[in-house]
């Protein structure tokens, strides 16, 4: 996937993702402060607007950095800052790359997961967005066929979100609810799942 295709695909995916913002808001209201809907909707719109301004020959690294800055500034919440930091970490592993395939996507996702773990001082099983991203990262590492990659990431994220339902939140506002958080899916992980689904729905497989 070259720059232009990558840029277009991100824009199409985020347009689809915005449709999930009410669902994510409601999920977040049950566990947190409910601003996840606006973070996703305003963030996605800001990213699309910023990407549309980029010239066609912008590198994948610069595309990822543009996404990070736009997302962080749209609604400067904790989630926005964590996601933006993750995208910046991912942008570093794409230095020098011009064609993004499964292997590049896997390295990006791994760097993003590591950033969220470090910045959010969190680990898999704490019931956060990391649970979804780490699962997708592992799934992408195990595949080489572009046709299978998105499907594998989607299945892994969906499984991770289902698994968060039985867990108790250990980070962020949701952790204040303690055992009352058990029984509800983590909104952050669910947002990531919806993103991967949107990526698939946006058309082509990673390649």
């Amino acid at each position, binding site marked *: 996937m070259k720059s232009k295709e990558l840029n277009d695909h991100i824009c199409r995916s985020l347009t689809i993702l915005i449709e999930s913002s009410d669902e994510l808001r409601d999920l977040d209201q049950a566990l947190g402060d409910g601003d996840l809907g606006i973070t996703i909707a305003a963030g996605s719109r800001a990213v699309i607007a910023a990407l549309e301004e980029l010239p066609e020959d912008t590198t994948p690294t610069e595309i990822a*950095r543009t996404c*990070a800055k736009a997302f*962080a500034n749209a609604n*400067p919440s*904790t989630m926005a*800052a964590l996601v*933006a*930091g993750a995208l910046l*970490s991912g942008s570093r592993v794409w230095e020098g790359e011009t064609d993004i395939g499964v292997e590049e996507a896997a390295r990006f996702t791994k760097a993003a997961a590591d950033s969220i773990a470090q910045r959010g001082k969190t680990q898999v099983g704490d019931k956060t967005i990391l649970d979804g991203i780490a699962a997708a990262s592992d799934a992408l590492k195990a595949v080489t066929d572009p046709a299978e990659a998105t499907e594998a990431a989607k299945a892994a994220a969906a499984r991770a979100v289902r698994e968060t339902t039985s867990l108790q939140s250990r980070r962020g506002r949701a952790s204040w609810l303690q055992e009352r958080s058990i029984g509800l899916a983590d909104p952050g992980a669910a947002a990531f799942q919806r993103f991967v689904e949107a990526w698939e729905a946006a058309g082509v497989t990673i390649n």
Partner: protein
Amino acid sequence: MKKIINDPESFVDEFVEGILLAHPDLVKTPGDDIRVLVRADAPLDGKVGIVTGGGSGHLPLFKGYVGKGLCSGVAIGNVFSSPSSDQIFQATKAVDGGAGVLYLYGNYGGDVFNFDLAVDLAELEDIHTKTVVGRDDVASQPNERKLDRRGVAGIFFAYKAAGAAAERGDSLEQVAEIAEDAVEHTATIGIGLAPTILPTTGKPSFELPAGEMEIGIGIHGEPGTRRGTLETADEIAEHLTSALVDDLELGEGSRVAVLVNGMGATPLEELYVLYRKTHKVLAERGIEIVKNYVGEYATSLEMAGASISILDLNDDRLELLNAPAQSPFFREG
């Protein structure tokens, strides 16, 4: 509740505009965003920049400490809310004189996330940063978890020390070390007598019955870690000072700087009544107050109450406190 405001939504922009109009010789806004202030002579070639930031509602914190011998720039959030990473980054670019930039701010989740993201943004433009967070509130966590404490009025000492070091031309590593050293040797504890009222909601942040006080308050109008019977000024000074002396393990022969800080609605007279007893309690224990500061240094809008901060001094820290400084709200020498 009556307030002198126009529109609650424009409250922050309007008081920042007021500061800019009142002190054009000391501070300026480097770009289009009025939420980013830097010292008027920024950037200083070859000197380390210091960027702070945080929510509004704490004046003189944070924007009041931008000036010579103090911070170089500040990113300003809404009342009790973090500034954005972009605002922090704009301040960073405006103060970078080529020697790197220290991020020095209070330990709060939203601020930490946004400053950390600004670290990434600065790195992309080859601006080297280091981060030190103020975490002086002894009531917020016990001593064994002191790294998780929140930052309150005592960050003033870290500003003063780090700002003096940057002004004399220390390297980024040295300025960060000096800031960290000041943070490690500072402890603060406060009490609240009346809540804060947010301009946007117009409602008090908590209810406090007559004859009671909140002990261990922060600077966001939040209740303290416990509620107790309102004590006399001498009892308050005795209890707060003892907690700080124990936390810092001060003893006979220790030299300290003391900051008695008003939370916004407490008269200076009451702060001096507190200082009086604090001075005596420390003197009885053989602890010498070498520097003292009494007044409003970090407030919580119109909260009534006070905090006491102590900095355990050595010769290096004392020299940094004594170095000249000038900002819209503070002057030394």
